[in-house]
């Protein structure tokens, strides 16, 4: 068994672009669920919209900044559209509507009627929309090795996308840190606890919930851009499983905390990679084939996370006392 190669692979997950994208999406979901108590089960829909918005406008020849704005605008519009009919209802209705809305985005995206625009089920090839992002890099082309980690400087799964991705994660953490300690965040927490009480104190609950939904959705859309930069826009890879991974990451790290989503994402992807690489190297082909190991990895991760959530429901960084008072 080649332990050094496995360890490098596993450690590489700590700062992989996918880890950053999921951390960012979980930060967005944290604004929804951790701060406001909104049950958004359609975070993947926000990400997919962001990815489409960015890729399609870039392909149409728009500059990088405009494409990012388009992605943000798409998510904001989607949030408004979702929020207007549902935010006056009880929380569980929002869950149903958001999961359906995310599916609608995916199904519309993969429908053959839109092949020209979205590439239907085969999606949009990465090379068709990566240029503006890669051209914005200040680094020379080629590859660069930092210790055992060797990646391309700018192309695809590069150092450049890692630097930008994690910078955005850091900015989002700063944003949430500022908001969580502000009076705005206090109102959101109040809404999470009891809407009517906050209403009786003269706050416009509907408007606050809408702000939270849009803000979290916009963070999700930016996560979608980072997610597709090292790969392609594939509607079917951004469906319900993605939403559930984001939820797992958030609960694992600890909802309503600043760094919980980041830590959750790192642990999630690192442990998945660890289990898969160790099994690929250690389990003979006669017992389990490679593709079965892939499936088995998910099972192990699922069981581990179930145990974690059962025995440590507040997540790794959450406050046990806060949760113990009123588990709802």
């Amino acid at each position, binding site marked *: 068994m080649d332990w050094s190669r496995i360890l490098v692979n596993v450690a590489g997950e700590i700062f992989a672009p996918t880890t950053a994208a999921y951390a960012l999406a979980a930060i967005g979901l944290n604004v929804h669920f951790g701060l406001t108590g909104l049950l958004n089960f359609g975070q993947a829909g926000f990400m997919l919209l962001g990815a489409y918005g960015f890729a399609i406008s870039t392909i149409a020849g728009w500059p990088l900044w405009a494409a990012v704005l388009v992605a943000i605008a798409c998510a904001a519009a989607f949030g408004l559209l979702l929020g207007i009919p549902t935010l006056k209802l009880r929380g569980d209705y929002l869950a149903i509507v958001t999961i359906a809305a995310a599916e609608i985005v995916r199904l519309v995206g993969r429908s053959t009627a839109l092949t020209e625009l979205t590439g239907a089920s085969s999606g949009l090839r990465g090379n068709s929309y990566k240029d503006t992002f890669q051209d914005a890099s200040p680094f020379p082309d080629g590859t660069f090795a930092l210790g055992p980690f060797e990646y391309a400087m700018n192309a695809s799964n590069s150092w450049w996308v890692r630097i930008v991705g994690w910078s955005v994660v850091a900015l989002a953490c700063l*944003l949430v840190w*500022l*908001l969580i300690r*502000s*009076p*705005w*965040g*206090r*109102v959101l*927490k*109040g809404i*999470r*606890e*009891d809407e*009517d*009480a*906050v*209403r*009786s*104190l*003269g*706050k*416009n*609950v509907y408007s606050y919930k809408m*702000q939270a939904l849009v*803000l979290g959705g916009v963070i999700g859309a930016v996560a979608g851009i980072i997610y597709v930069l090292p790969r392609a826009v594939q509607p079917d890879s951004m469906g319900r499983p993605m939403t559930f991974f984001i939820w797992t990451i958030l609960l694992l790290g600890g909802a309503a905390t600043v760094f919980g989503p980041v830590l959750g994402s790192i642990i999630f992807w690192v442990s998945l990679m660890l289990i898969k690489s160790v099994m690929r190297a250690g389990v003979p082909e006669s017992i389990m084939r490679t593709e079965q190991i892939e499936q088995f990895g998910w099972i192990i991760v699922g069981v581990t996370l179930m145990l974690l959530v059962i025995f440590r429901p507040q997540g790794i960084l959450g406050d046990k*006392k*806060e*949760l113990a*008072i*009123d588990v709802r």
Partner: protein
Amino acid sequence: MSADLPRGHVPAATPHATTASGRDRVTADLAHVAHTPGVPKPDAIVVADQVTRHFGGMTAVDVGHLEVQRGAITALIGPNGAGKTTLFNLLTGFDKPSTGTWSFEGRSLSGVSAARVARSGMVRTFQLTKALSRMTVIENMLLGATKQSGENLFTALVPPLWKAREKEITEQAEELLVRFKLDAKRDDYAGSLSGGQRKLLEMARALMSKPTMVMLDEPMAGVNPALTQSLLGHIQALREEGTTVLFVEHDMHMVRHISDWVVVMAEGRIVAEGPPEDVMADQAVIDAYLGAHHDTDLGDDALLDDGSIEQLQAEEQANLAAAAADDDREGTR
């Protein structure tokens, strides 16, 4: 009471007059008001007209006309299901009426959202206490404050813009917590407080916005007697400061002790109005709600000896017989 005042003293008409203590002034104001349901008051802060609320075929509230005197403590009493809480919900924008209009300080509040009702100065508490459990006591209090610009998403990102106001309201909150004897619990989660303390917290939180009128839905339910005393004190202190109080309560001792005016509801209607002593002597109110022995303290040990129990039973029997005789007479007619 008016004997304490100089001869020829005229009760001040201005709402926040400090020349006389709150109770005396209100009593003087209400002295010449007739004791009939829906009677106009000299200085009404809330005026409601033809307010009805139907749930399916059931009429929960059917109030023809109601006025609440400014600066007074008004009690809303009545049997369970009389529509007291529903009326509260309607007045505060938590429920939409089937018909009717009402105004607060001369401005119409019909169809106005709950949040805007609160911002206009009418703040309520709930029968089932709504402490925000997973927030600390001080956070609960700060949430009650108004004019905190940091509650705007964009201002929130620049702390210098709201830190000064935050300091002001924190001081105000701490003063209130001392008054309500919750200062020791300042940084505890509200969910860890006892039921009575949550009632106190909810009331203190409502006062953070310095409301002109507070609506308390059963402030004494589940509160121990020692705490009841201090709650009563707080409510009376509100009146001294010129705040109008309207509360729903089943505890007749409290109603008699602190209210200036009592409104009795039954089956959605207002059946009686007047000062507490008069209303509680009203035969209709006794029949509908209080019962013949409402004045008797059931916790009094003297009641436990056989003699008095027999006497009470005998009285009840006599009442029933009399009622039956009444019915018979009705029937033969």
